[in-house]
């Protein structure tokens, strides 16, 4: 099929299946993924000659740039200060816990599996930090959860995406080509340059937005700025994700007040971006890759959960949270979806990692389905244990 037609078929199938899943209170991203899987080469994709190849790379790049822009603008310095020590420590703890645990487990695995270099273990471990807010927020709403623990969970899931993108970008800069130590200076340049580029554009966007009165023109302004920043970062071998994140962060800080004008227009696109990510990812499904890398999938799933639990407990305890809250925090941070999949898809753009990207996408498909389905139960259990489980109501109409 033609590229545009392929994309139309994928998106419409994902959307329709998503509506069915929503009706039954199931996570939409799983529906998007299943729709994509249906059109993978070894299923309907082969018969219909659907190929998700090179054309998807720039699309993913732009979409991920927009997500990074939103992650950067999601929080201000003032909000970070007011969140307090406990939440910052807990967020750092559960993110680093997942990264360290996943890396350790996969690194050990790489010693026995010549097809899996340690760099791959590092990249996949960095992605382990991300959490999906949508599923967690829906569960908190469903059980009318209120209290300090609930607020902690909400703040941490917001911080997680930014932490995950930073961890992924840093890891990619450090492990790309050559020895780790010889990469250090280029990595610093890559990261520093990206932050400087994004910050400069952030100031420019904020200034320009003052003269843009019709709301309809804000999206074109931000969209073109993200395209330009991501494009320049790619051309100059800087981190495009950190550049886009810095753009969002600086534009929001410079704007002062709430971020509705500068972030609202792109937020409307978030669902479309996730629809693109998951249907594209599903189309990369390969039963053979899946079965031959089952050991990686199982190791990743277990190590990530263990890392989240241990890291959240340790981080929250160090931050001064009561034992019970610290102990159950990790259980509410299990879901993983959108940003993780976007990061995995972006790996397809790097020729050295193309093959590994397919493995990573298949690993994350399994983790998305399992974590998204199990997430509501683990979150509910954690809420019950800390005494913040309210009266159950129907699932929100998503």
């Amino acid at each position, binding site marked *: 099929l033609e590229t545009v037609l392929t994309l139309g078929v994928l998106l419409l199938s994902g959307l329709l299946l998503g509506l069915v899943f929503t009706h039954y209170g199931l996570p939409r991203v799983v529906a998007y993924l299943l729709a994509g899987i249906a059109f993978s080469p070894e299923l309907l994709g082969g018969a219909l000659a659907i190929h998700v190849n090179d054309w998807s790379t720039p699309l993913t790049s732009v979409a991920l740039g927009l997500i990074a822009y939103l992650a950067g603008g*999601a929080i201000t310095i003032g909000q970070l200060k*007011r969140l307090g020590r406990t939440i910052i420590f807990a967020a750092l703890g559960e993110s680093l816990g997942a990264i360290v645990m996943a890396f350790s487990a996969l690194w050990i695995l790489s010693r026995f599996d010549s097809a899996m270099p340690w760099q791959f273990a590092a990249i996949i471990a960095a992605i382990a930090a991300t959490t999906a807010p949508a599923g967690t927020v829906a569960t908190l709403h469903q059980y009318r959860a209120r209290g300090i623990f609930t607020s902690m969970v909400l*703040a941490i899931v917001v911080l997680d995406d930014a932490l995950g993108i930073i961890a992924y970008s840093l890891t990619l800069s450090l492990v790309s080509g050559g020895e780790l130590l010889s990469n250090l200076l280029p990595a610093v340049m890559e990261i520093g340059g990206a932050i400087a580029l994004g910050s400069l554009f952030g100031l420019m966007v904020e200034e320009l937005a003052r003269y843009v009165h019709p709301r309809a023109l804000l999206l074109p302004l931000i969209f073109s700025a993200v395209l330009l920043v991501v494009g320049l970062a790619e051309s100059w071998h800087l981190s495009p994700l950190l550049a886009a994140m810095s753009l969002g962060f600086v534009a929001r800080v410079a704007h002062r*007040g*709430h*971020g*509705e004008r500068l972030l609202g227009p792109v937020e409307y696109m978030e669902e479309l971006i996730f629809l693109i990510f998951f249907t594209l990812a599903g189309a990369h499904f390969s039963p053979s890759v899946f079965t031959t890398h089952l050991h990686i999938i199982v190791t990743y799933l277990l190590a990530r959960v263990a890392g989240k639990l241990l890291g959240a407990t340790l981080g929250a305890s160090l931050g001064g949270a009561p034992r019970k809250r610290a102990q159950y925090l990790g259980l509410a941070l299990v879901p993983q979806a959108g940003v993780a999949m976007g990061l995995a898809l972006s790996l397809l753009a790097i020729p050295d990692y193309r093959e590994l990207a397919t493995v990573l996408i298949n690993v994350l498909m399994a983790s998305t389905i399992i974590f998204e389905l199990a997430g509501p139960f683990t979150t509910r259990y954690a809420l019950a244990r800390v005494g913040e489980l309210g009266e159950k109501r129907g699932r929100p109409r998503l």
Partner: protein
Amino acid sequence: MKVVDWLDQHPGADVAVDPDCPLETILKKMLDKPRVRDLYVVDGNGYVLGRLSYMFLARQLLGEHHPAHSSSRQIMERLDQGCARDLMTTHFSRAHPDDSLDDTLARQVEHGVHDMPVVDDDGRLVGAINLDRALEETRKTLAGKAG
């Protein structure tokens, strides 16, 4: 009629709040009589820094009833519920005392601004045009014609 003449006849309610004003005080001021739907954050020198709109605050406080449509930014803003300077928008319409009242009212209706700030040449707040008052005057005129 000029805006300044209208303000002389209808001084209106105080729409200014301090940048550090907490959310609860903002809401109280917004819901007290006489009714105002927009407040303006004003610094110590009287300069207008930003606008606090009724609908934004309503979304902020009642939006948790639509969690699935909440972005990360909205979740964080809801959790934080900072002071006036965190909740304001720095992009807002304003009128000058010498502007035409009809043009100003037309802009208010077009942009959905219940209380339009009137700022002098230096950018200091001198008052606000309240749509309720304008409608009340229109009602009186209609009643006079009918009588």
